[in-house]
């Protein structure tokens, strides 16, 4: 494993380019500094890292462990405990199917099966071509308009297998946009 | 008193449990006085007979022959004893399960791990077809008594047989039920 890049301490605060050569590390520094490098802020810092890097690479976890002076195994333990953190890259598009009770009662499992068979995607994974990450959510809290699917962050209600597949086909049709 | 009709059966296992059975030494003589061994790898009987009083089943259910056999055994036997860890837990025979179904296992054994002439054996009617998963006996048929151990030590086998021969409901307790 590469040696971790040294975290910028309070004394080195500044907005210039990051010693690592990747300015996104400065965003992690910023999150750590905002929480005064307190170890309790681990989850907040992981949120920030994932927001800027898309997923939690091993070197980021190492960097955060170093910055917060935490044992690496604890950082890994926390990062893998929570569903929202991902240690692998996401696809170009994300499709989150809500499997909450209202959606279940309204037949979301058939919809999910249709998406799986059409795209070959497996919930929690990204398709091998890196296009689509399929996920299931335990409830997105829009039960009044169940079943709900969240396409690239936009929740859509009253979905059917057809309407969901139409949306996904559009991603594929528009090539590399 | 009628002589007890005893059988022993060898499914997917190493025969170590039968070896341990043979380790009963002079008790085998006592046993011969009190039972008829109607079916066993150590006697010459082709067909598992009807009306068996007691059977010791060694080995896990690993292939279709095992499956057909254990069902027949259950139908034709009053008291069925799961004899040894393979029968009780799957044990070594079931070590292949995490690898995946029968295809995966055959591929691993006869293709991936082979230096010369890799091929998957296929001989219908000669080689029994592997089941996708090896299971303990009780997940296929009901079992009356569990006699764990790999193999079960001879005194443990003797304790069970003595209880059963005396017509007592057999029961193992304490250290007599240890796996491994």
């Amino acid at each position, binding site marked *: *494993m590469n040696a971790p890049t040294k975290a910028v301490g309070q004394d080195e605060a500044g907005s210039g380019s990051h010693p690592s050569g990747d300015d996104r590390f400065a965003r992690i520094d910023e999150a750590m500094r905002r929480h005064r490098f307190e170890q309790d802020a681990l989850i907040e810092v992981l949120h920030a890292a994932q927001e800027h890097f898309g997923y939690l690479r*091993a070197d980021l*976890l*190492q960097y955060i*462990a170093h910055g917060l002076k935490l*044992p*690496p*195994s*604890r*950082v*890994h*333990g926390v990062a*893998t*405990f929570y569903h929202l953190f991902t240690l692998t890259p996401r696809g170009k598009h994300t499709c989150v199917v809500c499997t909450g009770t209202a959606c279940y009662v309204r037949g979301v499992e058939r919809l999910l099966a249709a998406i799986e068979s059409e795209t070959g995607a497996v919930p929690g994974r990204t398709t091998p071509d890196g296009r689509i990450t399929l996920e299931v959510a335990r409830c997105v809290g829009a039960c009044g308009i169940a079943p709900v699917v969240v396409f690239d962050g936009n929740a859509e209600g009253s979905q059917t297998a057809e309407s969901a597949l139409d949306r996904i086909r559009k991603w594929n049709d528009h090539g590399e946009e | 008193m009628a002589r007890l009709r005893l059988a022993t059966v060898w499914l997917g296992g190493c025969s170590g449990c039968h070896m341990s059975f043979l380790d009963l030494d002079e008790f085998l003589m006592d046993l011969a006085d009190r039972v008829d061994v109607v079916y066993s790898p150590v006697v010459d009987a082709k067909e598992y007979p009807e009306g068996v009083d007691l059977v010791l089943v060694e080995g896990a259910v690993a292939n279709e022959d095992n499956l057909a056999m254990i069902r027949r055994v259950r139908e034709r036997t009053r008291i069925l004893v*799961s004899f040894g*860890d393979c029968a*009780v*837990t*799957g*044990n*070594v025979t*079931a*070590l292949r*399960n*995490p*690898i995946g179904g029968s295809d995966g296992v055959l591929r691993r054994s006869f293709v991936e791990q082979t230096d010369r002439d890799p091929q998957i054996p296929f001989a219908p009617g000669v080689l029994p077809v592997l089941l996708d*998963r090896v299971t*303990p006996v*009780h*997940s296929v048929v009901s*079992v009356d008594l*569990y006699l*764990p151990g*790999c193999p079960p030590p001879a005194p443990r086998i003797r304790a069970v047989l003595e209880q059963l021969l005396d017509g007592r409901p057999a029961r*193992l*307790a*304490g*250290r007599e*039920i*240890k*796996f*491994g």
Partner: protein
Amino acid sequence: MSVHTLRIDEKDVSARAGQTILEAASENGISIPTLCHLEGLSNVGACRLCLVEVAVVGGGTRLAAACVTAAAEEMVIQTDTDRLREYRKMIVELLFAERNHVCSVCVANNHCELQEMAVSQGVDHVRYDYLEPRCDVDLSHPRFGLDHNRCILCTRCVRACDEVEGAHTWDVSGRGTLSRVVTDLNAPWGASETCTSCGKCVMACPTGALFHQSSTVSEMIHERTRLSFLVDAREKKQWHA
């Protein structure tokens, strides 16, 4: 220091304030089954084998984990009822079903707390599906090995490393039945930058999950009492044999 008197299994016993039910029972020769508990480490109340029945005012009982429940004045406790025996048996069976515990070929055969627990709880077969997960074996460390097939997630290794050695090389990753003990960022153990190779995790392990590389079937004998020896030496300055 105040002392409580309580009743455990029809026997009047006394306990110092702050003592757990488990400690009070043990001092009075009453043994309660445990797996995640280990003398010298903190208690987490996770394996639930030490559940006991505590009488409640107005009749009936409640279940309490003896390792994390403080002994209190006038408690009336049963440690070995039919109900508890049934639950404990189920818990042990669930553990055998969860990973691939093959006693006959295990390094810890005959020296394993899980195997012994099956004996003491009368587990002669497992009534649940064997889950048969694919588990890795990590032999990257020069002296020790980790076999996830045998791990029961008691976290004794995690606590030994954190609390006694202070390295916190171990932690738990994932969740639910997919949880795994990991070193550092789930790197091979041999590549760990925090591991001091002290072997305390291996001492603490109840099963054959952590072992010395030289050991083969039935050869792995853990030295589980050495942890409490170290802790007492460090904290009480007592070097008991």
